[in-house]
């Protein structure tokens, strides 16, 4: 019987399996950032342990860093005003120095969000097992790699043993076929999938995305899709390797070259599900019917198309869902049944590990060009995912388009996606955000988040409300 892509990656990395199904799998790449690693390094110190394989690790500061260009011009972390944030960042540097972990420092132009930096540097390669103390590690599955988030105890475990104690997941494939309409992006596909299966719809599964609408996506789009797999409950998202994957990886600094490249490619070309592979669960979605999406509630599954409305409480099936809807509407300050295009936004955030790659910057700039930010929009932040994305965008003049429109062009970091640094949505303010979570308080206590694509966020910046970007010209 054929194997799924996940089966192949699992088999390739299986060190040892017990009768009860618990297994040790070998980890090829461990990505590290400042928030979930300090307690792991401390654990190593307490037990007098050293990292098992230094070259498997790459560290980068991202969650707490300031994205203010003026603050970033200052030496080291001195631009980070808040003491606890600064201490956490400094602790990353000192831990990497103490344990000889490769670190891409804040001053390095390659610094960026860990899930943007990894692929850019070729630290992410097809066929790898990749873990990081961050749930959006699912992003790297876009390369035909088995990638997922882990907790801090597991960060310590991987450092000490180069393995993860785990159990095999089940296989779930979602096929998205059909030509996607203009104005629809990978983000909209991801949100539509989550809307359909729910935030726990893929819990316990490795979630493979397939179909013509997926293979026609760029690597940036594929990363956006796999990034959001965790918002459907799947720890790992996956997409098979094809020529698009190989073209992206070719020439990356940490990618193999010469003879090694040839043998790697020969192996990587086998990294797709076999035609006769069996999945525990399969779902087909007509991608041509998907419209630009916008979330209206406090969970990514609370989503509809931009032409849609907030649901009615009476339409909910159970008491729990009625209650959840009431609470969400109360938090979001919305009325049941209202049109999404009538919802006014106060802020716009374009960035995060979901949507801060060069293609996202281009998509947003393309919408913004020739327009101004609506006066009712108090702030509009554009935060490139890495120093390299920033440099590329500036070389293309995209920064000027944003600045001329009255938007802020920032330095790379996680920024307002989770508001661990100074970039926050103020209480009661409403933000059109290209990030991944609209949980209560996610972007700042009391902040109201609507998840959208970069094109939709850009359109909202111009009109001050949710607008289908493909209809912008006719307004």
């Amino acid at each position, binding site marked *: 019987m054929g194997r799924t892509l996940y089966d192949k990656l699992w088999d390739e990395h299986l*060190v040892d399996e017990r009768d009860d199904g618990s297994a040790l799998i070998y980890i090829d790449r461990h990505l590290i950032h400042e928030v979930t690693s300090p307690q792991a390094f401390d654990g190593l110190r307490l037990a007098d342990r050293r990292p098992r394989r230094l070259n498997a690790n790459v560290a980068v500061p991202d969650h707490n860093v300031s994205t203010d260009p003026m603050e970033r011009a200052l030496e080291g972390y001195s631009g980070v005003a808040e003491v606890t944030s600064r201490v956490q960042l400094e602790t990353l540097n000192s831990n990497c120095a103490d344990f000889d972990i490769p670190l891409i420092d804040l001053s390095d132009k390659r610094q960026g969000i860990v899930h943007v930096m990894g692929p850019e540097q070729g630290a992410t390669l097809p066929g790898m097992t990749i873990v990081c103390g961050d749930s959006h590690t699912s992003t790297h599955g876009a390369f035909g790699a088995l990638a997922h988030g882990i*907790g801090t105890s597991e960060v310590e475990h991987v450092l000490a043993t180069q393995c993860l104690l785990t159990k095999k997941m089940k296989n779930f494939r979602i096929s998205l076929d059909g030509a996607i309409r203009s104005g629809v992006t990978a983000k909209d596909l991801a949100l539509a999938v989550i809307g359909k299966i729910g935030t726990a719809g893929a819990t316990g599964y490795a979630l493979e995305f397939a179909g013509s609408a997926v293979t026609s996506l760029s690597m940036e789009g594929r990363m956006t899709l796999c990034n959001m797999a965790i918002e459907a409950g799947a720890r790992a998202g996956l997409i098979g390797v094809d020529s698009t994957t190989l073209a992206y990886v070719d020439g990356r600094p940490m990618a193999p070259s010469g003879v090694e490249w040839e043998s790697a490619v020969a192996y990587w070309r086998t990294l797709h599900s076999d035609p006769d592979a069996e999945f525990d669960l399969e779902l087909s979605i007509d991608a041509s019917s998907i419209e630009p999406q916008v979330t209206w509630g406090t969970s990514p599954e609370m989503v509809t198309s931009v032409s849609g409305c907030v649901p009615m409480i009476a339409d909910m099936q159970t008491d729990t869902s009625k209650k959840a809807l009431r609470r969400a509407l109360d938090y979001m300050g919305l009325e049941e049944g209202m049109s999404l295009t009538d919802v006014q936004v106060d802020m716009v955030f374009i960035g995060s590990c979901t949507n801060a790659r060069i293609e996202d910057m281009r998509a947003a700039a393309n919408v913004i060009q020739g327009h101004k930010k609506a006066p009712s929009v108090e702030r509009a932040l554009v935060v490139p995912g890495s120093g390299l994305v920033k440099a590329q965008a500036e070389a293309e003049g995209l920064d000027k388009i944003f600045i001329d429109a009255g938007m802020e062009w920032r330095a790379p970091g996680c920024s307002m996606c989770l508001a661990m640094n100074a970039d926050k949505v103020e209480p009661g303010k409403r933000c059109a955000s290209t990030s991944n979570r609209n949980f209560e308080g996610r972007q700042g206590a009391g902040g109201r988040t609507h998840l959208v694509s970069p094109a939709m966020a850009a359109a909202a910046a111009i009109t001050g409300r949710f607008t289908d970007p493909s209809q912008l010209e006719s307004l």
Partner: protein
Amino acid sequence: MQAFTIHDGWVVPLDRSNVDTDLIIPKQFLKSIKRTGFGPNLFDELRYIEAFDEASPDAARRLDPTFSLNKSEFSNASILLARENFGCGSSREHAVWALVEYGIRCVVAPSFADIFKNNAYKSGLLPVELDEAVINALFDQLNEGQVLSLTVNLEAEQVVLPDGSSATFSVDPFRRQCLLEGLDDIGITLQRESAISAFEAKHRQARPWLFSEIKV
């Protein structure tokens, strides 16, 4: 790790589904480099009337009396009763540390998010999955004003309910053993060092590009 065998405790309800780890411990408390100190900020945005102010972190704040954890009848609770998909979202293990430090030893829900469940085992916090009907009945009794206690027996994989009947749950056998004995994962894995080394040598030969030196 603290072993988990049998736990007898009072129940506190949290009647909402999809409780995410941002709600359990908001990100403003993730800046600590320690494993302790998260208990006072468990469910911070629900627990306190005044929002946490990073500029004055030690400012006194009033507890919200309408939030279940703050009610006197639940003040000694060590078992959290919740709805489906508990612990979804971010991988932060701080959520587990906050629950444990507050005094929760066991979360009872119809289902859990994967990463949270995995993290819970590492700190001796037991996630117990029970049928939705059992969970609904417990919520109903609590909503009627009853105070409930449960006996959670990991060895028998059984919860003794307030009426004396019991409900079964299951925990992955390996995880169960680790919890019962309070075993540390790293120690267990390091016992398999020869298997890891053998795998690594084979893997290095087959995929040499995975072992190149990283120059940063």
